[in-house]
């Protein structure tokens, strides 16, 4: 983030134009970002703090929290491994079809979440390809935790790879080569040289991936089956409450997810700030 401290008078607008532009931008952002954010919390506490706590502590809400946490607890580490491997392979090795591979990593971003969920229903659903075989072995994937985890993994799979790729590409491999010629093992090189260089980017990718994993709605909605207390994640629980006109309960549960989003943004800004400081110090 570089801000021009004192641009030449001739290359900036008159104060009035400046104020007008800032004003329009802030009104737009206020309408689209601040108003929804404030509304969530106002509506959540509309019926008082007691009602808020009751909605948040209700058994179905708690089981939704547990399910959301467990899905993210599997999806994020799996995608962390994939992100590292994919970004590493693309940045450090030469091979043909590299651009194709990068495009393939991006595919989940451009596939509608509903279609993402549908793919897994086609594969693992009762009438899907593997459905009969799974039923024989009494394994439930669709309308159960594995399906939710799979859908979440698919939707969030590009996030960490995408953060790491430019970082690794810009660094080259000179320092790693130096470490290797000095006798470091591959693992030592990775943990002592490569990892410290990418740790902020890695953390950045992980928190964004986590936010998306916990908030995913469309894909999870297709594979979950909406079984209350069993396969309802937090976003799905919000939907059910809202559709039952339990508005303040819906917003109370939504406020938990909103807090998660705010924490994510705060950590993200902190990382950017730290990374900026480090870059400035060099």
């Amino acid at each position, binding site marked *: *983030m570089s*801000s*021009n401290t004192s641009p*030449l008078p001739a*290359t900036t*607008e008159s104060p009035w134009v400046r104020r007008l532009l*800032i004003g*329009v931008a*802030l009104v*737009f*952002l206020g309408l*689209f*970002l601040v*108003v929804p954010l404030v*509304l*969530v919390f106002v*509506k959540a506490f509309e019926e008082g703090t007691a009602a808020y706590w009751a909605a948040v502590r209700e058994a179905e809400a708690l089981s939704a929290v547990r399910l959301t946490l467990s899905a993210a607890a599997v999806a994020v580490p799996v995608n962390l491994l*994939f992100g590292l*491997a*994919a970004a590493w392979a693309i940045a450090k*090795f030469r*091979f043909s079809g590299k*651009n194709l591979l990068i*495009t*393939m*990593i*991006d*595919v989940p971003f*451009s596939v*509608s*979440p*509903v*279609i993402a969920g*549908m*793919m897994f*229903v*086609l*594969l693992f659903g009762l*009438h899907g390809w593997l459905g009969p075989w799974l039923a024989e072995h009494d394994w439930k994937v669709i309308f159960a935790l594995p399906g939710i985890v799979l859908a979440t*993994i*698919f939707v969030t*799979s590009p996030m960490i790879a995408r953060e790491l790729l430019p970082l690794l590409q810009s660094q080259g491999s000179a320092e790693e080569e130096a470490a290797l010629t000095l006798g470091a093992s591959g693992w030592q090189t990775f943990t002592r040289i490569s990892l410290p260089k990418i740790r902020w980017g890695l953390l950045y990718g992980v928190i*964004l991936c986590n936010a998306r994993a916990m908030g*995913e*709605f*469309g894909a999870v*909605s*297709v594979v979950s089956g909406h079984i209350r207390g069993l396969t309802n994640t*937090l*976003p799905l629980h*919000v*939907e059910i409450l*809202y559709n039952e006109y339990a508005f303040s309960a819906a917003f109370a549960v*939504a406020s938990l*997810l909103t807090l*998660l*989003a705010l924490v994510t*943004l*705060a950590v993200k*800004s902190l990382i950017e700030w730290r990374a900026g400081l480090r870059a400035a110090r060099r």
Partner: protein
Amino acid sequence: MGFTLLYLSLIVLIPLSAVFLKASTLTWDAFWKIISDPRTLAAYRLSLVASLVAASVNVVFGVLVAWVLDRYDFPGRRLVDAMVDLPFALPTAVAGIALASIYSGNGWLGQYLEPLGIKVAYTPVGIMVALTFIGLPFVVRTVQPVLAGLDPEIEEAAVSLGATRGQLFRRVLLPELAPAAATGFVLAFARALGEYGSVIFIAGNLPMRSEITPLLIMIKLEQYDYAGATAIASVFLLVSFALLLTINFLTLRYNRMAPAEPAG
């Protein structure tokens, strides 16, 4: 390397091919009948138009916001800068219920808009509002680094050669920003096309009128009409892939044009 390919095959390629294989079990006539059904066509049209409108709004305001954040200093600038990413971090269902209740007839904004004859919630306009929300960060975040990386000397040269502020913007800044803005537009458009969570609460979901394509796919799935869902989805997927290739083409071209950044 091998792990990357294996993972991509398991998580991305095989599931995706399941969609096309399932669609290919339909005869051509049956396939055509599903995708040329008036309800399907209406959903396709609505998805395309609403996403185009939302992405266009985002280009205009995205460039403006990026400009304001990069060039001007005002109290709370860093907070505003951090807030821009809210649509990435906020779960779409939360955004959906918040927007729906803001713009409904007795909502915070809806109560003032409705007497003016502007109905937002439960109409296509509401869909555009939701899609604008979720696409908001894309243009800002693609344009911002380009603005920050521009050499101030170019602008100073233009001004010293007698260019007015308007000429400077049109002739000097716009050509520099256009590729980034275009990338942001396509990213926002692609995201908007597939969006489901934030839209369904505010859309009203009337067939032929306010039913987006992902919702129609969802409805078919809930009726166990897998063939119908896959037929609609496969056309939609092809559009998404075309967009993805456009994005990568734009980024590639843009990276090639951009001068190498000086180190340090």
